[in-house]
């Protein structure tokens, strides 16, 4: 089974979700569930950190799109932390996701 870790830390009105490991078809639904549980309707901003993600393909990008559209409906801002030059970054750029969320190069 593909392994991914979803770590959540919340402070004030922001939630940071760090994904590590790998995401593919085998675990995408489980990862999506974990992310959904981590976000209540309270935060103003959700920051998704993909720095430690070793592999992601369209199954993972699909999670991002679903999350973005839900957060948009809730008026919660989404930002992604994805290192420039990484494979994950390239896929996100290719998918046209930039119009839905700000891409940040590194953790603050």
């Amino acid at each position: 089974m593909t392994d991914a870790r979803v770590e959540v830390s919340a402070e004030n009105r922001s939630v940071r979700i760090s994904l590590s490991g790998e995401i593919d078809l085998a675990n995408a639904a489980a990862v999506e569930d974990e992310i959904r549980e981590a976000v209540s309707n309270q935060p103003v901003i959700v920051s998704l950190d993909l720095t430690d993600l070793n592999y992601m393909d369209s199954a993972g990008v699909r999670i991002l799109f679903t999350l973005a559209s839900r957060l948009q409906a809730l008026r919660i801002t989404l930002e992604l932390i994805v290192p420039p030059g990484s494979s994950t970054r390239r896929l996100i750029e290719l998918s046209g996701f930039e119009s839905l969320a700000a891409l940040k190069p590194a953790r603050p």
Partner: protein
Amino acid sequence: MGYALLVSTPGEPSDTPAADDYRLRRIESVTDAALAHLDVEDLLGELLDRVRELLEVETATVLLLDSSCQQLVATAARGIEAVVRQGIRIPMGKGFAGRVAAEKGPVIIEQVDHTNVLYPFFREHGICSLLGVPLLISGTVIGVLHVGTLAPRRFTDDDVSLLQIVADRVAFAAQSRRAEVDRAAAVVLQRSLLPARLPVVPGLEMAARYVPAENGGVSGDWYDVFTLPSGWLCVVIGDVVGRGLVAADVMGRLRSVLRGYALLGGDPAEVLGRLDQQVQHFDPEAMATVLLAMFEPSFGRLHLSSAGHPPPVLALPGQPAVLLDVPSDHPVGVPGGLRRRATTINVPPGALLCFYTDGLVESRNTSLNVGLDRLCGSVVAGPVDSVCAEIMARLVGDDPAGDDVAILVLRLQDSGEIGPLDLVVPALPWSLRDIRFAVRRWLSAVGAAPRTVADLLVAVGEASTNAVEHAYGPGGGTVSVHLELQMPDVLATVRDTGRWRPPRGENRGRGTTFMRNCSDDLRIDHGPTGTNVVIRRRLGEEAPR
């Protein structure tokens, strides 16, 4: 036979020729050569029958010492079979049998009462007098033989001597049975625990040898090779202190526990630390030296930690072999050690590593340093089977092995030697991870640029995901992945034998975009017999687009 008559002769004088003859016949009846043909179970029963007849006693019992708990366990009985059926156990030093064992000499009880026996067992069975002698092997007590009578009886010195002769015979039989059982069990255990076939890992050649010591059975040497879900490859070699079944049993536990702890993650020092804690708590008697080496998924780097185990040998192509500089920490099972250390080394393509147990380099005739020098002199970065053969020939040779010898040799193939990768996996979501690991390893072994690796992982991953998701009905099928070098490119083919249905759900179809962007050339052929996705991507720098 005559002895039964002679036994019943009343008032037998003790120092006449007739008495000597009588004694001799009594002894012959229990040292009878015919008894040698019986197996041990039958022999014990037969000896007890004969001793009952000879000594005119109603009961005869053999108790063997279970050294792990220092208790005497009723093992064979005549007249009071219930002692065996009820699993009677007597602590050393307690009761009648316990006294015989503790005193290592004969004990006689003429009148059984609650002060001189531990359980009411004898009294309940109406036993009145008892004579017991120890079962001794080279002065060590391994059990007790005792006889009992329903009527009061005064046992004579002759009775004691005769019972001791029988006891010696019983001791020998019991000992050889125990040794036989232990040895058979240890061999079975050892066989079942050492991997009969090493895992097939693309890009890596492996060979191993295990030779038990010639002077008796096996000990606790072991080696193990396994992959983790994260793509890391673990190599273990270890040596449990001790011999025989006990050592083999501890080895079995260490092997499983170490696998489990490796699964939890962490560097090899952390994994050995957990193993150490586990052994100290649950197996405080056990001690072992262990070397754990963990290859990163690319195989390019190796992380090692040693719990008192001799360091592996590294040979690079065209260079003399050297001992790796791995700091040795305390063995597993030794309390109070300092923090364990892990070392990281780079392993270039073509490198060969040799892991071994000390039986290979230590012998009565040569010092450790000589053994290690000789080992380094025998190892080259060549084919693993010939390296194993060379090591065994030069270090073991014609000498009988005084200690177990285990060696495990691994070689990273050079990019030029790597053949195509061929994988056939079930078209199921959890196969995707396996495909990725195999592709990552293969690309790393052929020296693909990092960007090429990342791109091909996505392209092959998307093609495989499509086959998993869209090619088959509930009956399922397989996905084949083939990678080969067509310099300067890598050609990857992902094939299924089903019929793709159109993508379903929102946000689907993105996979094809990714495939196209991650390859220099992409062809998708949907045919009546299945779908072929052919991806071409440059092996070295730089990317398309």
